[in-house]
């Protein structure tokens, strides 16, 4: 059984792995002790924490973030195999995957990935990244951001920034009750401001160009 904290440098900063087989309280205590051994080294660091398969609540993640904040460390992202932990991290506005690393989104697999179900408004400051489809029951407010390699359905008003579909995914689409954003791309193509905003829409690609129809 591994009981030591692993730490390594990555493009996004530092990646810490808390041993999966430790209870969370014990893991967090060990992690803090590890950081306290070299406080000056970690101060100001941008940290990603791999939490393994643990299912953590929002309050657990808040405690982790506060423990790091007290040490002058910024928690940037958490990695986890637990959907509950991933969802709660996203609610706190934390990234849940590494950027610009080998974990690039796989175009062929995106459509087959499980959909991310968000039964509430996505508010300012929240960034959601998911490789499969994303379904929001609520609005996407200004200041919020959704990035998906697949499609996006918003049962509400879309007013935040959305990057939908990776560049090879010609099947990706956006459905929303009101398309009211000026910051949207579909398969890497910026969507024009001429798209109607007053009725439900489905936006898709036709011959590599954005097209739309009433969503009924």
């Amino acid at each position, binding site marked *: 059984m591994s009981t030591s904290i692993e730490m390594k440098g990555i493009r996004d900063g530092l990646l810490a792995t808390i041993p999966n087989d430790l209870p969370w309280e014990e893991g967090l205590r060990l992690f803090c002790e590890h950081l306290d051994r070299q406080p000056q080294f970690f101060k100001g660091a941008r940290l990603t924490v791999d939490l393994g398969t643990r299912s953590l609540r*929002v309050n657990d993640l808040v405690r982790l973030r*506060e423990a790091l904040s007290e040490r002058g460390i910024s928690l940037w992202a958490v990695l986890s195999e637990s959907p509950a932990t991933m969802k*709660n991290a996203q609610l706190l506005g934390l990234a849940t995957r590494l950027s610009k690393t080998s974990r690039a989104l796989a175009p062929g697999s995106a459509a087959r990935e499980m959909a991310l179900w968000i039964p*509430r408004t996505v508010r300012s400051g929240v960034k959601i990244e998911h490789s499969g489809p994303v379904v929001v029951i609520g*609005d996407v407010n200004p200041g919020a951001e959704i990035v998906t390699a697949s499609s996006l359905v918003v049962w509400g008003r879309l007013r935040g920034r959305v990057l939908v579909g990776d560049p090879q995914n010609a099947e990706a689409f956006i459905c929303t009750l009101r398309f009211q954003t000026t910051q949207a791309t579909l398969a890497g193509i910026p969507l024009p401001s001429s798209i109607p905003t007053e009725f439900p829409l489905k936006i898709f690609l036709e011959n590599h160009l954005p097209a739309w129809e009433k969503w009924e």
Partner: protein
Amino acid sequence: MSAQVVTITSGKGGVGKTTAVANIATALAAVGQKVVCIDADIGLRNLDVVMGLENRIVYDLVDIVEGRCRLRQAMIRDRHFQDLYLIPAAQTRDKTAVSPGDMVDLCNELRPEFDWILIDSPAGIERGFRNAIAPADRILLVTNPEVSAVRDADRVIGILEAEEKGSPWLIINRLKPSLVRQNEMLSPEDVLDLLAVPLLGIVPEDEAILIATNRGTPVVLDEKSRAGRAFRNIALRLMGKEVKDEDWDTPESFWSRFWPLKGRK
């Protein structure tokens, strides 16, 4: 008696949180409620100034938490109402001097003696904000009808929802109906459309606020002030009373009516 803990927060600074705390607390005390205000803005305290109590501070919140004084010693009685108290923030420390757990313990000690504990949250979403919301039963969110303030308010709502604190009640402060008519300011409907939380009240822009703040006398004590009237209505709604929304477009003279303040010394 078990007090309800109400935290007043905003996200963006300068939208009128401290003014709201002082006025709601005074309005509650004016109708006979026992109220204590806690200034949680450690390092940047202001509530003492707005309540006109800055010269009476001996001990502060950090002194209580660090055991240098008893709770009662740090509580300053208001100049106008005998059942209204302030626990001031420390001015020479930072937010890490107090933890969320300390705030919960402090409020639990105060609860049996009061009807209301009002906490003035610092701006931002960092440690001071987390200290302020930790003991809250109810959170009031103050925003101005400006895009930047509303954006920050939306961020705060997201954090409160994520931390399972429930939907805050909204106070729209410094509304200027003339600018709304000219499409130069967000209307209350615009703000509510975006934030989608319950509205507790609207406070119109009123220069009486500035005058009252500089005098250290909450504007609810000015019977002619429109903002004072709005804060009194907000306090009553907080107590669960039904108070009709005002039409802030009505000429000012219309509001110059007497409002009986009970419980004044």
